[in-house]
């Protein structure tokens, strides 16, 4: 059962300042691995075997570990985690954990840092007294807000939000999404939003990248991709979501099972499940092909047109 899993394979994208890129994909498509790798911390035992990452002009992977720690992590890029429940160390107060990077990177005293933490906590809509509380004393929604506060503590230009609302109730989810939206405008943040939920991406993202089997299969401005999806996977995915309004159409779904990443299919990774498959798909894998302004799709069909 051993083998090499290419969790993220040949992914390239760029992100402008003050925009939000949504990365969508189902479980196992490599989204989370991508998130951690952007920070230079691929989840063990994984390794980055190639490629480059530039953040704010700095080549992240060329830096030594120690340098990366001091210059990049949390200063240039911070993260809001999947499963915020466990993102906090249970034995330290929320305040300390929010303030820790300030003491570490900015040389604040504990008092100053905690003061800053109070401000931050207020700005994400929490009562200031949470800084003296322990993680287990907070509800899921409060914890998620605290995690966001922690991510903003050093005012990084880039924020990675990895499934920031999964496992939250809808009302809380809406509140957290509103908070992120507000912060994005107020703080001029660039955000990489990673989620399996296309609806959540629609709430926040300016651009969207759809991932399948460790690759980006479609990329573009969100309106373009949602209203005019060019990759069959994106098309099927969008039409598999039940809607809250309008006519009730029969839902479409993607037949078959997601590919095994140890032994991925030859050619286009999606071809075994694709309703439009033809010979070429089985043989070779297409590149990302420009199908519109800023709009790319990894599909042979797109090139035919």
């Amino acid at each position, binding site marked *: 059962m051993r083998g090499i899993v290419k969790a993220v394979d040949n992914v390239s994208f760029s992100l402008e300042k003050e925009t939000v890129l949504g990365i969508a994909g189902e479980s196992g498509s490599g989204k989370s691995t991508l998130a951690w790798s952007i920070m230079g911390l691929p989840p063990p035992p994984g390794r980055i075997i190639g490629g480059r990452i530039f953040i704010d002009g700095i080549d992240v992977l060329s830096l030594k570990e120690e340098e990366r720690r001091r210059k990049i*992590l949390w200063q240039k890029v911070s993260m809001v985690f999947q499963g915020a429940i*466990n993102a906090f160390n249970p034995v330290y107060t929320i305040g300390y954990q929010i303030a820790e990077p300030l003491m570490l990177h900015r040389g604040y005293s504990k008092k100053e840092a905690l003061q800053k933490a109070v401000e931050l906590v207020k700005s994400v809509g929490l009562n200031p007294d949470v800084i003296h509380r322990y993680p*287990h004393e907070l509800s899921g929604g409060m914890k998620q807000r605290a995690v966001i506060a922690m991510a903003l503590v050093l005012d990084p230009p880039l924020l990675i939000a990895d499934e920031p609302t999964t496992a939250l109730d809808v009302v809380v989810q809406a509140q957290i999404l509103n908070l992120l939206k507000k912060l994005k405008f107020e703080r001029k943040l660039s955000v990489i939003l990673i989620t399996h939920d296309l609806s959540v991406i629609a709430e926040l993202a300016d651009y969207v990248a759809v991932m399948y089997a460790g690759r980006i299969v479609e990329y573009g401005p969100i309106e373009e991709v949602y209203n005019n999806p060019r990759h069959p996977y994106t098309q099927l995915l969008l039409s598999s979501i039940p809607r809250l309004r309008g006519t009730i159409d029969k839902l479409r779904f993607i037949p078959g099972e997601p590919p095994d990443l140890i032994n991925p299919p030859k050619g286009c990774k999606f071809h075994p499940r694709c309703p439009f498959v033809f010979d070429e798909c089985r043989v070779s894998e297409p590149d990302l092909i420009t199908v519109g302004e800023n709009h790319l799709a990894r599909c042979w069909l797109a090139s035919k047109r």
Partner: protein
Amino acid sequence: MAGLGRTLAIQAINSLIILFVILVIISAMFVYLNQKQLEAVVIEATQMFVRNLERNPNLTPEQKEQLAKAFEYNMRVRFGLIGSPVERIFNLMTRLITLDLGNARNAYLGASTSVKDQIVFALKNTIILFTTATIISTIIGILLGMSAARRAGSILDKAVSFAAILSSSIPFWWLGMLMLLAFSFKLGWFPYSAKDVYVAVARLQAMLQAGQLDKLTYFLKYLYTWAYYMALPLITVVILSIGSWAYVTRNIVLSKLTEDFVMTARAKGVPERKVLYGHVLRAASPPIVTIIALSLISSLGGAIITETVFGWPGMGLLYWVSLLNGEAMLLAANVYVTVLLFIIVVFALNFIYAILDPRVRTDAATYTPR
């Protein structure tokens, strides 16, 4: 902090129940099994007393008889042979609790023949030895366990696991015997009998009083003497304790290492050392304390017996001595105090646990419907 108080109150009640149960067991065993023996002792002592009385010409036979009866009654009270079995058990329990157990037949080292004195003397020495040993093995064990966890699968890691396995199947006291064979018999580096420390210290004191030593030299020599006599028992206990400390630390730290907050700390740019010793070890400390408390319950007894081998004048040696001399009361008192010591240690560890774990400290046990 209400949570902490409650946790400790519950813990205290539990400890008291355990102590009570053990006292009942010991006392009941005594009352039912040791009675004949004590009965015989009382009769013998009374006969002796009567014989002595006979020689006294100043007393009338009635007075003699009265005195003899009073003597016998007193003896019976002393040995707890008065009243119903329940009363006897109860009496013995109160006497055990207060250590009001009369005199032993033989003196124990520096102490008098009073059972209480002997127990206190032994307890003091046991505490000296085991506190030192625990401090040393904790520090080394945790550092070793951390290093093993950091390099899981390395030779060090395997060695730690193997050492833990070995040390959980080696009796402390047997290792003690080996140490004596190697370092006292073969190499002659350390003394056979640790209890001679008192002789050596007395000699030092005499030299100090005679003006042969200045105070500083005396103090240094005093420390050296203790270290010299304590070294072997200390090393023995430390060697066998490190393994379990290291192994427990390793396992818990390893399980914590995969938790999300560790990745969070790394992403925050916390230096790896601080991640390990600040975040991981701190978060791992409550379960480490719990497991160590549990393992102490099972190993401390064996460790205390180690004293027997080295002649360290603590509770362990007192077991040997009281068994050798057939001093049941002394034995019972010793067992009681050992158990008390255990319970206090475990209670203390639970206290530390409660302080280390905010979930206990702040008690947020609220109902969450599913």
